[in-house]
């Protein structure tokens, strides 16, 4: 099985080397592709020195455009599974084998590493928690079974999901919308519990005003997805 770890990174020179090393430790056979989303610092050089493949975007596309770059590589080069790990170090690489296993065993096409399925010790501030509940209800309805953590960016995609996302992936704040695209395209979506950590370097890219904008934008985007066409993969289920 060919596994590609996609690491979107924007100004993460302080954390990206550790992330690459952890992925290596968890999945020694995986290829690591760092997508440098137009960083102003030495992210690309640090990642290259750490032994990762580095795709340098000529300017900042946002997380969606960066992750999709990885899916395009995964599709073109015939990877069976692509796992998406943030370059800031908050995703626990040691959980990658569990996400990948769910796809390998044929349980799902798209796996979300979730902070809430079991008690994983994650506590979000109250307004954000409310937003998460609303999104969870919305996504659960569309997917057809309960989805507790809709905003986690720690995910694994099988061949069929890679196919869909290489062609259609949301632009900014892509997590919720990507799940909806997958479910509407007939892909099987699954949640797997993982324990996340605080960031090792850099800061969260979302503040209070952006959180409100986030909710409005994401709900609108989900609405638009539900009105639009479905993107079904041509690849047969494994």
């Amino acid at each position, binding site marked *: 099985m060919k596994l590609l770890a996609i690491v979107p990174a924007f100004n993460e020179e302080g954390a990206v080397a550790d992330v690459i090393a952890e992925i290596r430790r968890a999945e020694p056979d995986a290829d690591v*592709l760092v*997508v440098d989303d137009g960083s102003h610092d030495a992210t690309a050089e640090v990642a290259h020195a750490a032994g990762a*493949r*580095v*795709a*340098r*975007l*000529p*300017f900042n*596309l946002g997380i969606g*455009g960066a992750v*999709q*770059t990885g899916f*395009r*590589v995964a599709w*073109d080069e015939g990877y069976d599974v692509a796992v998406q790990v943030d370059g800031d170090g908050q995703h626990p690489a040691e959980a990658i084998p569990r996400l990948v296993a769910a796809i390998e065993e044929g349980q799902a096409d798209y796996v979300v590493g979730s902070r809430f399925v079991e008690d994983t010790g994650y506590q979000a501030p109250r307004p954000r928690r409310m937003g998460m509940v609303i999104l969870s209800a919305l996504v659960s309805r569309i997917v057809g079974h309960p989805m507790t953590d809709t905003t986690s960016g720690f995910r694994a995609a099988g061949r069929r999901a890679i196919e869909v996302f290489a062609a259609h992936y949301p*632009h900014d704040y892509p997590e919720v919308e990507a799940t909806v695209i997958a479910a509407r395209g007939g892909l099987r979506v699954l949640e797997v519990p993982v324990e996340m950590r605080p960031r090792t370097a850099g800061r969260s890219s979302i503040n209070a005003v952006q959180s409100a904008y986030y909710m409005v934008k994401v709900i609108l985007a989900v609405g638009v997805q539900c009105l639009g066409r479905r993107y079904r993969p041509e690849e047969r289920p494994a």
Partner: protein
Amino acid sequence: MTRIVLVGVITSIAFVAAIVLLIRARRLQERFAILWIVTAVGVVVLGLWTDALDLLARAVGIAYPPSALFLLVSVFVVLVLLHTAIVLSRLSDQNQTLAQRVATLDERLRRLEGADAEEEPNGAALRRAPQTADLARRRLRLARGSRK
């Protein structure tokens, strides 16, 4: 011909001239220019044929004919804005695809060149380099020539 009609006609002719100049300078593509030429001609017609506005207002049921003009202009402006938003969306999509393509091709090129440098005996990559550069220059010249 009243003074106001004269002013209107002169203004709209200046508008047409400006558009023709922009097209000549390649600052405006023909497919966008068509819209603006039609607009300019419409303005000239409305300026010369003063009864047109009254006829239009009566047909649609507008009591005060000049309002018909404002309505016409607002509808037109909204349509033009919508058109530019559509064009802009498509361009930004294409721009993103190109950026991703550049990033993945660049990664592949660096990887292949890196592998060459490591595997080959000393100097082999260097000896081949001028040839490659030469080819690149020739392609560039061809590309430039075809644009003229």
